[in-house]
């Protein structure tokens, strides 16, 4: 038997009273793609941070290529040939690609020779692995997919043999994700060892050779991918049976709730983001808007939610016009008229991270009479209400006094969802409801959305996850370049068809 590329023996790590990793052992063969799955907070990231020298394990040993290795810091990890591609890229946004690549791996005190050498090496690497990207491009001008390539190139430039990718597809479009997997396949052929951390089961099934499941700091199983099934892995992750398919009855649409006509949005830079789109949503119906990020969906949500003004068009709620031109277009008046909004970026728009959960639960609804006590806020009532919501929406830990940033992504999202959905809004705007959320929470949030629909409310769902769009929507509209490039019923379409629409190609139209 050959020596494994990585062998972890009995790794333990505690943060205060929280045991993040408990006696974890893992062995990854050379040239394999090994998946690590687990819910948020299961300890995947901690384990990888230990491997990359960000944390020191309390106990345990790391063996790299059959040699016991101590990794006190990132420098040591790099020397041991370990490279890490973080979920949130560690790139300097206003530097060029080549500057980012050489940062920390310069050849001497002077920059110019390092840069010209790196440019050559980079072009070779790009060619070898199919990672084309212009070495002199500025990072912030690149798409997310290309930025990720830069991260991978950075590791290859440092001659990493073991690549750890933390949630690499969380920010990618389906086609970018496919490209990434092709690149990973190529890297594997060249003998690189890859550890893929994810909670997307499809990716695990598609690309990995072996998979380990973590739950609550423990490694619960390591299996060959070919010998398992998504359902089995999901069960190992969550500790109970999970519904991977959204369970819902056919829609029963009523009257028109939201009527959008010729909506135009021009951003401050003068670029037209939404180019005159029209659609309707009926009561008891979920309209899913699919599309690659940046094709106007965000602006659409923000206009409807009252965060930015529109430059043209009309929006009617139950036949009554809503002001979208600016001055009165605030979220407050929207909420009073029964529009709930779960924004795309919960950490920036949905929550105030340093504020406690109960304060976050009141935001936007702080004029609610039940939160008032004369001229003052009735904090006790808000806290009680928050505790009640936390229980019903299964927010863990159910502590209203905890700052929002101390909750995991899924639980943060549940706080926002509880705030916006518990009042049974006539229209719910919900953007990327399950981005960075673990399987258990996804199931829960999906159930809530369906329940709202079944209660006869209208839902506008914007998501880049096709699975989610297909599973939840009663109708699907695809946005491309600020227009709706096509509309489909979920029963009449598939990922390939939607993928083409997302690229602006409407096959149905072309055939007609």
């Amino acid at each position, binding site marked *: 038997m050959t020596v494994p590329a990585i062998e972890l023996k009995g790794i333990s790590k505690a943060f205060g009273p929280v045991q993040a990793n408990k006696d974890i052992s893992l062995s990854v063969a050379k040239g394999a793609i090994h998946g690590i799955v687990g819910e948020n907070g299961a300890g995947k990231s901690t384990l990888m941070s230990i491997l*990359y020298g960000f944390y020191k394990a309390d106990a345990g040993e790391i063996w790299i290529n059959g040699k016991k290795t101590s990794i006190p810091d990132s420098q040591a990890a790099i020397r041991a040939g370990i490279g890490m591609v973080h979920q949130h890229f560690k790139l300097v946004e206003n530097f060029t690609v080549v500057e980012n690549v050489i940062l920390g791996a310069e050849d001497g005190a002077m920059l110019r020779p390092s840069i010209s050498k790196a440019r050559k090496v980079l072009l070779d690497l790009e060619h070898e692995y199919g990672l084309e990207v212009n070495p002199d491009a500025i990072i912030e001008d690149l798409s997310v997919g290309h930025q990720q390539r830069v991260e991978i190139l950075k590791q290859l430039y440092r001659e990493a043999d073991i690549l750890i990718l933390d949630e690499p597809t969380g920010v990618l479009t389906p086609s970018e994700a496919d490209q990434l997997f092709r690149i990973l396949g190529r890297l594997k052929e060249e003998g690189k060892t890859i550890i893929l951390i994810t909670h997307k089961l499809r990716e695990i099934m598609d690309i990995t050779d072996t998979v380990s499941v973590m739950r609550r700091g423990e490694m619960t199983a390591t299996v060959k991918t070919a010998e398992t099934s998504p359902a089995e892995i999901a069960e190992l992750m969550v500790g109970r049976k999970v519904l991977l398919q959204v369970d819902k009855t056919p829609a029963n649409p009523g009257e028109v709730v939201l009527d959008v006509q010729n909506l135009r949005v021009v951003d401050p830079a003068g670029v037209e983001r939404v180019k005159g789109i029209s659609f309707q949503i009926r009561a008891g119906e979920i309209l899913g808007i699919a599309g690659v990020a940046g094709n106007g969906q965000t602006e659409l949500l923000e206009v409807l939610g009252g965060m930015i003004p529109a430059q043209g068009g009309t929006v009617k709620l139950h036949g009554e016009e809503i002001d979208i031109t600016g001055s009165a277009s605030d979220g407050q008046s929207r909420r009073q008229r029964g529009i709930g909004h779960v924004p795309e970026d919960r950490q920036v728009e949905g929550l105030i991270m340093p504020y406690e959960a109960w304060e976050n639960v009141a935001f936007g609804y702080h004029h609610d009479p039940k939160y008032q006590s004369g001229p003052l806020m009735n904090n006790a009532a808000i806290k009680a209400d928050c505790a009640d919501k936390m229980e019903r929406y299964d927010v863990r830990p159910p502590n209203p006094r905890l700052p929002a940033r101390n909750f995991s992504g899924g639980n943060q999202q549940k706080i926002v969802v509880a705030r916006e959905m518990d009042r049974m809004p006539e229209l719910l705007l919900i953007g990327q409801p399950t981005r960075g959320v673990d399987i258990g929470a996804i199931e829960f949030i999906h159930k809530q959305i369906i329940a709202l629909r079944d209660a006869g409310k209208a839902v506008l769902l914007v998501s880049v996850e096709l699975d989610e769009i297909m599973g939840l929507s009663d109708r699907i509209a695809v946005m491309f370049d600020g227009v709706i490039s096509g509309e489909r019923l979920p029963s009449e379409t598939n990922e390939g068809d939607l993928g083409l629409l997302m690229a602006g190609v409407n096959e149905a139209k072309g055939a007609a």
Partner: protein
Amino acid sequence: MDFMTILQLSDSSLRLATPLLLACLAGLFSERAGIFDIGLEGKMLAAAFFSAAFAFTTQNVWIGLSVGIIASVTLSLLHGLASITFRGNQLISGVAINFLASGMTVVIAQTWFSQGGRTPALSGPARFEEFVLPGASSRIRDIAQQDPLGQVYSELLSGHSILVYIALLIVPLTWWILYRTRFGLRLRAVGENPAAVDTAGISVVWLRFAAVMICGVLCGLAGAYLATGLSAGFVREMSAGRGFIALAALIFAKWRPWEALGACLLFGFLDAVGNRFQNIELLTFLNLVFLFVVLVGAIMLVLRAIAIARGKGKTRALTGPAIALGVGLLFSIGLPMLDPDGGLSATLNNIVLPVQFMQALPYILTVVILAGFVGRAIPPRAGGEPYVKER
């Protein structure tokens, strides 16, 4: 206004811009590394006092300078300790340093010299002498006899303290360090995204401390120049808000070294005008303003033209400076023509701007700049944020 007046104005602009320039570059190093520093003022003040005190006691200005730098670096390390090691609020730490320096200098000066919180006047070896370049005259009468080129050489270029020349040399040096060395790349990176630096296996803490120490050294030079070059001794609060003006200049310069030189010269010029013209007639003032606009326009035009010649700029960028140059020339030449009988000039000459207005000019400009009238200035993105490793 004759040529000699303009030369003398430029000359004192340069001298008055020097402490601003040193402080501005000090701030540049610190802020480019992501540590905001409003304690430039305090560090300058401390350096001014300690350099003057030790220069007087030892009668050696170089010892004074060294002690001044040590004092400033000590305060820098204090700022680093608070904001890098203990991840405190950088603004509060800076304010504290300003208060500390403001009180400490006067108290120590009083107990040491008993002259009401000042040091005795410095002279001879305790002061930075004027440095006369080879072949230059130093007496006004001799200079007045020379041809214009000789006048520029003797009056404007020659006869400054050595620290003025050092400050001017530090500008290209800073540019070179920032954009041509490994240290510069890392320094800029740590101010933009410390996580990128950390994952690349470089110590964020060390880099930021290095930047803060460079900041201390430059502030030390600035303070020492104030007390031992520009003036002859320390008086209380002698930095007079220069640390804050330097910060405004830094923002104006968008955290770039050559632009910092330009911004500091602008502030120096206003300071010089305020010093020279006590009660100034509106006409003279307008003439000065237009003269300045012409100068700035011409310099910008040349710089941008060079950039375009090197293939690094757009032709559109020439429009702004060209318009400024045109308007300036139009007014400075056209004003007398529009006004053949001198009536308007006489009216304008009757309006006298008070000395207070002139002295307030640099501060007014600071407020204008900080209010954001100079276009978008994007600070280093990680500026002001202590770096905490994320889980």
